[in-house]
């Protein structure tokens, strides 16, 4: 394990890949690893990209990465696709759009399934991002599924959150979940070569006009891979946002929020592990369920009793 960590810190992709797998599989060795690498994290700029299916997020990420590579920045990309709740399997296709980058040693791409996590992220995402950070990546891009709570999840985790939309999704701008302006740091209107691009930009501007309280001026950037426009502007916006965060001390606050979210999630997870640990409570849950079914006890009292017994 020490060897793996040493190699990780040197940026070795095999070590990084192996450790991500261990994180995903909830290996018992991981807490030790995370403890060791924590002080090596914090230098990467974490970018979250969200938006519904069909908005071209993967192509956008590919273009952004190529632009970053030209500036000699190393990039880690995490593409998340939904795990089928029915089979437990997943089709992970985000990296298809970026396969030309597969052999670039300055780029690391990892595809992950949500594996039962609700929303658009995986429960292991914090650790995965930490690993990418510790391996020395300058930029980390996390692409989410864009459904459910994923926008909130990603806003809590990323330094910069980009929301991607496309023209012609009709009134989807209006139906865009309320509060989207609270989490987006940058809006990208992708596939801007399609009709309705200008309207989409205007609609977003109107929405932002009414909503925003923040000091940060949320830019709305049209981009199109067929026309080759928008990427330098998006990169600039990302850089500007990072400058804004560092200069105003928002970065410290944001990361504080992230650590808090991560901390609470870990506590929840470890607590649940503890509660469900078979050696401790095998049979207790089933007995309680029986009691509840027979109306001898209600669920609240049952939960209180279990927790009381544990904390004793």
């Amino acid at each position, binding site marked *: 394990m020490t060897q793996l960590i040493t190699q990780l810190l040197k940026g070795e992709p095999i070590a990084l890949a192996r450790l991500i797998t261990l994180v995903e599989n909830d290996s018992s060795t991981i807490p030790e690893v995370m403890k060791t690498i924590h002080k090596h994290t914090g230098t990467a700029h974490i970018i979250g990209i969200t938006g519904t299916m069909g908005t071209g997020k993967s192509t956008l990420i590919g273009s952004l990465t190529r632009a970053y590579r030209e500036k000699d920045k190393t990039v880690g990309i995490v593409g998340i696709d939904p795990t089928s709740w029915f089979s437990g399997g997943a089709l992970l296709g985000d990296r298809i759009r970026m396969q030309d980058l597969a*052999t670039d040693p300055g780029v*690391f791409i990892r595809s992950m399934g949500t*594996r039962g996590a609700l929303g658009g992220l995986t429960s292991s995402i914090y650790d995965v991002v930490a690993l990418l950070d510790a391996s020395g990546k300058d930029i980390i891009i996390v692409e989410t599924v864009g459904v459910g709570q994923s926008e909130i999840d990603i806003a809590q985790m990323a330094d910069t959150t980009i929301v991607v939309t496309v023209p012609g999704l009709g009134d989807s701008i209006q139906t865009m979940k309320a509060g989207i302006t609270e989490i987006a740091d940058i809006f990208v209107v992708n596939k801007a070569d399609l009709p309705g691009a200008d309207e989409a930009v205007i609609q977003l501007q109107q929405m932002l006009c009414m909503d925003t309280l923040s000091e940060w001026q949320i830019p709305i950037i049209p981009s199109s891979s067929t026309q080759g426009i928008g990427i330098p502007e998006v990169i600039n916006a990302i850089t500007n946002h990072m400058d804004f965060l560092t200069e105003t001390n928002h970065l410290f606050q944001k990361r504080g929020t992230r650590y808090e979210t991560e901390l609470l999630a870990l506590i929840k997870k470890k607590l649940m592990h503890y509660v469900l640990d078979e050696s401790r409570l095998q049979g207790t849950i089933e007995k309680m369920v029986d009691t509840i079914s027979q109306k001898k006890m209600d669920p609240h009292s049952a939960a209180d009793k279990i927790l009381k017994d544990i904390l004793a």
Partner: protein
Amino acid sequence: MTKKNIRVLVAKPGLDGHDRGAKVVSRALRDAGMEVIYTGLHQTPEQIVETALQEDVDVIGLSLLSGAHLTLFQDVMAHLKKRGMEHILVTGGGIIPQEDFDELKKIGITHVFGPGTPINTIVEYIQVSVKK
């Protein structure tokens, strides 16, 4: 407890554009609970191996119907060796004549699934082989 999934890379090396089988197998493996990374058409052996490395897959399934299997599969195996990743199970599928099976086995392709192979055969093979 987070579930452990078998991770499979379904890859099409070279210029072959026949992707019906690769897509059907990808879906079937997903339905069998595996995480499947399908990288699309026209992958070079280097791209396939680097992808397998980053994704830390258990299996690489190479799909080829253009007849170029001896050269391209050989290249993939050579790259795997170079990167120290020979622990990955590599199988092949597509239009590959039986008389080439031995040669492919020699270079490390553990099994070739020819036309008419039931999906379950592939699923079970992977499940059993990865357990070992």
